[in-house]
């Protein structure tokens, strides 16, 4: 990864933002590393956009600071920050051609003529739209518009790139393709990315680090593998797709035990939990079960058809078990 010369460290220090009595950001602090792909992950309303907009300069925090290198930019005008941004819905200028859209930030910086033409051509090349320069945004598909927004946000060599759910409007297949492209682009330009999403799969597959947000706070910050294997609390575990939380009376130990559906398995007679199958779904080579224990707890487990000796049906009683290495203990909260 070759570092961009513009790339200075961004540091968000204890920012708060209130709307009336509602606390949209609550003491949010984060040091963004040079050149990293940082993802803000959280459910709707958790403050991701508010945080990103504060960094971009469209929202002024009530307290706290935002530093770029040694410079305090908390109240700097958005146009003075030199941050690229890809907006949700792209916000391409409808009256300008693709080429003019990408040239816009250069024009605003007084860069014209051959230098501008060359930069625009390079940026469009980088996103694979070299031949679409003369089109208007409305003449492009969603994925192509997304790429134009990307080219426009990096053509002026910004300090960093902010992306607010850039792929959420696209269908699954295209999204997967663009995820790969974004990662390639991140490596190619060596720019710091701050990426907002509420899709945990996207966050896990693309990021160097993930900040999980809830109710205006960052509840956990770490590498994808760390989050996946050691979620800090039940919220993070649930958000990253852990299905089962076993209480003390089932496990005989203090607190909750988090077990993924994939780690809970059928166990003949020796299983530690007995339950009754209430629902089952076929998903290709695997069946996803929902079962109820006697005390009314709903559990999920998966069964691979390949190594199943017996396929339990609805209302059948089963016993379930897990391996200690697959289980995560939490304090009950």
């Amino acid at each position, binding site marked *: 990864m070759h570092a961009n010369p513009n790339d200075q460290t961004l540091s968000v220090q204890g920012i708060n933002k209130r709307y009336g009595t509602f606390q949209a950001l609550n003491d949010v602090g984060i040091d963004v590393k040079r050149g990293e792909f940082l993802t803000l992950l959280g459910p709707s309303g958790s403050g991701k956009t508010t945080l990103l907009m504060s960094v*971009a*300069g469209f929202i002024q925090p009530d307290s706290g600071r935002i530093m770029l290198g040694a410079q305090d930019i908390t109240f700097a005008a*958005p*146009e003075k920050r030199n941050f690229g*941004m890809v907006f949700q*819905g792209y916000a391409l*200028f409808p*009256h300008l051609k693709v080429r003019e859209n990408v040239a*816009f930030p250069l024009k605003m910086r007084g860069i014209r003529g051959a230098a501008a033409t060359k930069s625009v051509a390079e940026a469009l090349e980088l996103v694979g739209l070299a031949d679409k320069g003369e089109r208007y945004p409305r003449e492009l598909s969603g994925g192509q518009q997304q790429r134009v927004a990307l080219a426009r946000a990096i053509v002026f060599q910004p300090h960093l790139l902010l992306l607010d759910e850039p792929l959420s409007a696209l269908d699954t297949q295209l999204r997967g393709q663009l995820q790969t492209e974004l990662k390639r682009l991140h490596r190619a330009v060596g720019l710091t990315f701050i990426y907002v999403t509420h899709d945990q799969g996207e966050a896990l597959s693309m990021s160097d680090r993930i900040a999980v947000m809830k109710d205006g706070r960052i509840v956990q910050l770490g590498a994808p593998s760390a989050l996946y294997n050691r979620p800090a609390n039940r919220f993070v575990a649930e958000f990253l797709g852990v299905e089962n939380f076993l209480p003390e009376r089932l496990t005989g130990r203090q607190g909750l035990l988090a077990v993924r559906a994939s780690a809970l398995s059928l166990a003949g007679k020796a299983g530690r939990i007995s339950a009754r199958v209430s629902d089952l779904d076929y998903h290709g080579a695997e069946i996803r079960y929902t079962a109820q224990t006697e005390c009314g707890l709903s559990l999920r487990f998966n069964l691979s058809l390949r190594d199943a000796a017996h396929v339990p049906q609805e209302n059948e009683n089963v016993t379930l078990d897990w391996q200690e290495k697959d289980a995560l203990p939490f304090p009950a909260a």
Partner: protein
Amino acid sequence: MSDTLRQEPTIVTKSLAWAVICYLVLPITVVVSVSLTDRPYLSLPSEGVSLQYYEKLFTSSEWLSSIWQSFVIATVSTAICGVLGTLAAIGCWRIGSGLANVVRMAMLIPLMLPSMIYALGAYQVWAGFGWVNTYTGIIIAHAMTGMPYVVITVSTSLAGLDPKLEQAARNLGATMGQSLRHVIIPNIRPGVISGLVFAFIHSWDELVIALFIAGRNVFTLPRRMWDGINEHLDPTMAAVATVLIFLTVILLAAEFFLRGKKR
């Protein structure tokens, strides 16, 4: 939308539509005919048509001076309310909250009040400023009463504009002024042009305020026509009216064309 869903209008609908059109256009045809009269008073042509009143119109220094005065007043007041109305509409759009709606409603007051009330009020206030019987007085009054047209048309254009466009422009390095000039205005140009056309037409044929505020010095075209009717039923008036209609049609056609081009 889809053409396949359109039904052929029934005979009733068609006749009704034509009746409405006739109702709207008939007075105009009368005025046009009267302007071609060969008699010395306001009447339909009897022996044959004559262009004498058009000749009179374009050679009379009084009528020409009124045309010129109305043109200057309409142009300057349109420029003023064009700039202010556009900026006000953009401001409301950016605020976007309840307050903006209140401001927008306030902007429409001149349209909702009978112009008589407005003229009376303006007369009182202008008298204090020494603006009665001056160009300044009537230009400012017309700029105020023309404002609603601009605010309405520009707001309508803005309603379809994504507020993120301005944020995008700022993020990409444009100052507030640059984003206004390079992003917002180009995207609402049709609305601005419509507003200017309506404001111009408004000032061009406004009579009540002109009667109140204009004294000896300012003699706008509608006022000259008014006097013409009251004093000597001069058919020149009909010629003026025809020219006015013609001009309005040209302006509306231009507006229609310019707006159509962008869509």
